[in-house]
């Protein structure tokens, strides 16, 4: 049994490495004309033989970071309400609602936003209403359940003993959160943010439906642009022998490396010294 599990674990690790190798081999025809670095920095202009993915990388990063920036404070407030401030029955009800939100398919978010949010963004910002800001708002909503559940978990796992101590010493609820909850919960909070970032970066449908899909490097959040995932979905119909098609594997490598970086970040945080131990006066 032990060997079965060992082989299962080894097989999973091997599969992950194999995916990277396959992506690299399949993108070789494109990468042989330069390096991954060149592909990263070039614009996308297949008519003139330029298959760079720079505009898509910029769009993916900007929409994901904006989504996380919008979602994090709101989700943190929501998690504090669920764990600290809200009446017990409302807490349970809210937590169930958040879990339900997490199970809604992304296409439902996208489709609803097309009818409810896009016209309002068009009125407010001009243009078609399909831009990075619109996509980021819905991505923020999409990643909210992940963030809230992570935040709630890390806050509830923080030591009740420290919370009681601060309360008994005359601490207000806010002081309990600041001095007893946050110093212990921060790695979980950062993990949640990183995973939320990964989810926002990896989502395809919302950016495909709401970001506008223009192949241009965006100058502002009101610009229509295309993310890496939307680009893969749009170009997948190209001739499989073409360099255009091969560029998709370069996109996949970028997404793969980004995800790997996030996982390494999460691992590093989990193994790092807790902030509480760095608070010596």
């Amino acid at each position, binding site marked *: 049994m032990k060997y079965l599990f060992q082989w299962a674990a080894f097989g999973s690790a091997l599969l992950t490495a194999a995916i990277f190798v396959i992506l690299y081999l399949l993108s070789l025809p494109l990468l042989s004309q330069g390096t991954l670095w060149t592909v990263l920095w070039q614009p996308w202009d297949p008519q003139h033989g330029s298959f760079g993915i720079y505009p898509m990388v910029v769009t993916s990063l900007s929409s994901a970071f904006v989504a996380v920036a919008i979602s994090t404070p709101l989700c943190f407030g929501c998690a504090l309400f669920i764990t600290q401030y809200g009446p017990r029955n409302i807490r349970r009800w809210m937590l169930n609602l958040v879990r339900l939100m997490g199970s809604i398919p992304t296409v439902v978010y996208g489709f609803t936003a097309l009818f409810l949010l896009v016209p309002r963004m068009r009125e407010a910002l001009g243009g078609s209403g399909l831009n990075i800001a619109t996509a980021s708002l819905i991505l923020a909503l999409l990643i909210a359940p992940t963030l809230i559940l992570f935040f709630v978990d890390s806050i509830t796992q923080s030591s009740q003993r420290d919370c009681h101590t601060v309360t008994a*010493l005359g601490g207000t609820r806010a002081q309990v959160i600041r001095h007893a909850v946050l110093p212990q919960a921060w790695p979980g909070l950062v993990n949640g943010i990183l995973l939320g970032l990964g989810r926002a970066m990896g989502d395809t449908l919302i950016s495909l439906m709401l970001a506008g899909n223009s192949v241009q490097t965006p100058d502002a959040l009101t610009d229509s642009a295309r993310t890496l995932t939307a680009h893969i979905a749009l170009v997948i119909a190209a001739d499989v022998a073409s360099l255009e098609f091969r560029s998709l594997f370069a996109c996949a490598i970028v997404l793969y490396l980004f995800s790997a970086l996030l996982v390494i970040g999460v691992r590093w945080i989990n193994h790092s010294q807790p902030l509480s131990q760095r608070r010596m006066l």
Partner: protein
Amino acid sequence: MNPREKIRLSNLNFFYGKKPILRDICLTVYPGEITAICGPSGSGKSTLLTVFNALWKDDEHARVHGTACLSLDGQHCNLLHPEITLETLRRRVGMVFQTPNPLPMSIQANVAFPLKLAGEKMSPQVAGQVENVLRRVHLWEEVKDRLHHDARQLSGGQQQRLCMARSLILEPDVLLLDEPTSSLDPEASQHIEALMVELKPLCTQILISHDPLQVQRIADRHHFLHQGRLVTQPH
């Protein structure tokens, strides 16, 4: 309430949900004394202690009926009043828990922490207060060269004295001690007992204890709780 009394509980009933934990408690605590509350596990001793600093109010399942009065600066404070300022009350009624509970910060930061909660910043004056209170609990000589070290590196007995110092820095009127020596070795327990006797002129103490000998040694009065009822009166 008699002016000689520090705390008076009358017909106090404590419910957790629908379950009665304390029934018809009538208890008087006198200033400058050590009042011990004994009883078997689950008799409601620690629950009773939470009435004195209103810690029960943080649990939404807990309900208390009856009268609980505390004399503070000559004024009578109703501990069960819904509008009572909990933070102010808890700064006047300190608490030391069963297990030493230093916060994950330095020795100095731990002792100064209640002052920080009250809005004071670290200053030479606060450092002086920290030194005074550490001297009072006879811990200064042991820690003066490592004030910036993690408080959790101290021994159990030292940690408990540190927790007492932390409670004393606010000069509380009442100190609640929830079995403060139960997790300590005999020598460390002796230190804590001696300290409690020394503190009698400074504050009123309410001690929860399982140890009848300890109660005999240091308590001025004792009460016995059984199944949520106070079954013996002070001698």
